[in-house]
């Protein structure tokens, strides 16, 4: 039997009656509690199941698309090598890109961090008297807290990507880099639109909802003073950049107003226009299983009579580039394949990560942004390695997650109780005698303690599953002594 059709689940009548889970967010200075947020998400069964099935369906479509490309693994190799080359010569290619962009008539700005980025864009807007902005989806702008900043200075930002718009209207962060509202069901969207756009709360037909959004947003788009986009790739050779969308919304943002500002992370540089073929073939197949995104838009110069700005943002990237263990995370092309395959992401939902970047990618990026706040995230993984295998640019994601655990433990970023428990385990397991005693007491505890003691709240194993039974013959060690050893032989360190 195959996985049930996700669309059927999405349309199920039950969905209407289950409110969208809204896991609590970490307060400033706190650790994100992934396990707690995941529990809240899982306690909304219809949402939890729908999320798993829907996201898994993307992973399956990716597999199908991969099977159509005989040279898939070679393509991944090539993409990884191009990124290695670009990142190891990043200074040179960045200069080349900036020079070429300037020669094309584009204003180029350099932002050291998120605050720089927001200030630079704000200054551009101030110079042009901009009050209303349309923007296409950009993880970098999320990373910079751009929308919140602009809210603070009284500039209206309207998302043009449907999923992102839903999230904006619901005052939530995106939960996935490619499908920002994937954790919501249609019934949730109809509730959000009913509250914010005044549509019918009982109609969750996809066409109806999309149309409501379109009618409400179109005047805002036509009326905007400036448009913003991110970029998927920036080409050093030409000074141009590429934005991939499925809704064509980047073209609206870039072309409707006369002012176009593009925020580009410095790691987006590829050396040549011809490199694009490799990445474009991989990106959408890895993300959604489609051969290409609906719109792969190239931008190189301002439209006639218009103005174009590029803000090149570092925000910790050059520091990460210098770290031998984690630099290759900069190869990421934000396809989201690692999230789609991740069994933990699918069960817990993207909002449980409490961070801009979710899923396996987030586990390796977020702690470098704020080690304490995100110190639980590298533990929100079974290290199963599927993410590494789907990654189109061959980032060794699960190995970096494993590395992060060590870094966090060494920097005293993991809870003291956990560390001292493991230190005690280490002492027991380093001593054959202490170890044998521990096994005996575990056996007797399992034999003699009543169920309620084993399955109480303190025992995380027993919360969700039964404990193993005590074997009748005792441990393997006992069996070996009884059946395989000459009774006159005495083993060192094992006298009883």
């Amino acid at each position, binding site marked *: 039997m*195959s996985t049930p059709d996700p669309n059927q689940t999405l349309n199920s009548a039950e969905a209407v009656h289950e409110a969208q889970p809204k896991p609590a967010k970490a307060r400033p200075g706190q650790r994100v509690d992934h396990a707690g947020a*995941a529990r809240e998400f899982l306690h909304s069964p219809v949402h939890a199941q729908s999320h798993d099935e829907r996201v898994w369906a993307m992973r399956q479509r990716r597999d199908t698309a991969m099977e159509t490309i005989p040279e898939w693994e070679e393509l991944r190799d090539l993409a990884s090598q191009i990124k290695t080359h670009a990142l190891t010569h990043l200074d040179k290619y960045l200069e080349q890109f900036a020079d070429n962009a300037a020669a094309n008539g584009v204003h180029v700005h350099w932002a050291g961090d998120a605050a720089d980025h927001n200030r630079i864009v704000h200054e551009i807007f101030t110079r042009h008297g901009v009050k209303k902005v349309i923007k296409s989806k950009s993880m970098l702008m999320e990373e910079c807290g751009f929308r919140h900043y602009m809210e603070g200075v009284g500039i209206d930002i309207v998302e043009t990507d449907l999923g992102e718009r839903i999230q904006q209207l619901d005052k939530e962060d995106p939960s996935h880099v490619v499908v920002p509202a994937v954790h919501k069901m249609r019934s949730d969207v109809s509730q959000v639109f009913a509250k914010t756009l005044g549509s019918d709360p009982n109609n969750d037909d996809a066409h109806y909802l999309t149309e409501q959004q379109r009618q409400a947003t179109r005047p805002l788009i036509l009326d905007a003073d400036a448009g913003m986009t991110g970029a998927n790739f920036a080409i050093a050779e030409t000074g141009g950049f590429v934005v991939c969308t499925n809704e064509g919304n980047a073209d609206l943002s870039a072309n409707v107003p006369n002012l176009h500002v593009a925020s580009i992370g410095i790691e987006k540089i590829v050396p040549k226009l011809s490199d694009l073929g490799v990445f474009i073939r991989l990106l959408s197949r890895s993300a959604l299983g489609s051969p290409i995104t609906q719109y792969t838009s190239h931008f190189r110069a301002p439209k006639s009579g218009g103005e174009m700005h590029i803000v090149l943002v570092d925000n910790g990237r050059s520091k990460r580039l210098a770290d031998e263990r984690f630099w290759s995370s900069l190869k990421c092309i934000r396809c989201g394949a690692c999230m789609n395959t991740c069994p933990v992401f699918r069960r817990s939902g993207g909002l449980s990560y409490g961070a801009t970047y979710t899923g396996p990618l987030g586990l390796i990026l977020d702690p470098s942004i704020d080690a304490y706040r995100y110190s639980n995230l590298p*533990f929100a993984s*079974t*290290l199963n*390695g*599927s993410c590494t295998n789907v990654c189109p640019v061959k980032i060794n994601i699960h190995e970096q997650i494993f590395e992060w655990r060590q870094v966090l433990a060494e920097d005293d970023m993991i809870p003291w109780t956990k560390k001292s428990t493991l230190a005690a385990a280490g002492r027991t*397991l380093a001593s054959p005698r202490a170890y044998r005693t521990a096994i005996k007491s575990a056996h007797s505890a399992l034999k003699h303690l009543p169920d309620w003691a084993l399955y109480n709240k303190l025992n*995380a194993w027993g919360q969700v599953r039964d404990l193993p039974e005590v074997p009748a013959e005792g441990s393997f060690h006992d069996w070996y002594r009884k059946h395989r050893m000459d009774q006159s032989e005495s083993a060192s360190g094992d006298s009883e």
Partner: protein
Amino acid sequence: MRIGLFVPCFIDAFYPQVGIATLELLERFGCAVDYPFDQTCCGQPMVNSGCHAEAAATEQLFVDNFAAYDVIVAPSGSCVHQIRDNLTAVEQTAAVQHVRANTFELVEYLHDVLKVGAFPWAKFPHKVGYHDSCNTLRNLGHGKPSELRGPDFSKPRALLEKVEGIELVSPARPDECCGFGGTFSVTEPEVSGRMGRDKIADHGRAGAEYIVSADTSCLMHQQGCAKRIGAPIRFKHIAEVLNGSAA
């Protein structure tokens, strides 16, 4: 040539039959197998949590116990992965390097080294779902994971297919993690439990009466989940099936 048998801590404590089957199976193929008596654990629980320093003494004890053997065999993929790839908290002496380079997981040893052709004593007339643990599949290379493009192969399936009467069935998500994940199982119990229940259900829909694996830790977790929800499915380590366990 002498083989040192490593019986990981949780197998020693809760699944002695897996250790016994491993020992007997190797002996059936003429191997001389010792069980170093002072062994405990490979250090994985600490290392899995990032606490490498806390694992150093356990790793050293492991090396002291096994350095004298030509090869070390263990019926646990995750422990073999720890020894081979992550036993780094101790100084990398010649003894440590020898141990790391010569430790094999049981299926690998039977398939790649002994190149076993038949298990004439083994009959298992049941529908079996094979559980590829993530460590055996993706870190040790037991087979082709579903994410990668290339020719299909599976060492454990190749061995199981030689068992009389066995019928291998395939779940819809063939190599999805079952959610054990070492300390993950206790730090994220809800997600872990959900993954375990999903895994069992997937095997159940495929018609499996038994789930068989080369990783006892995954089986311990899945068995615990199955008991909790009253799922009728049963569990065996691959060593038990290959050694002729009837049911």
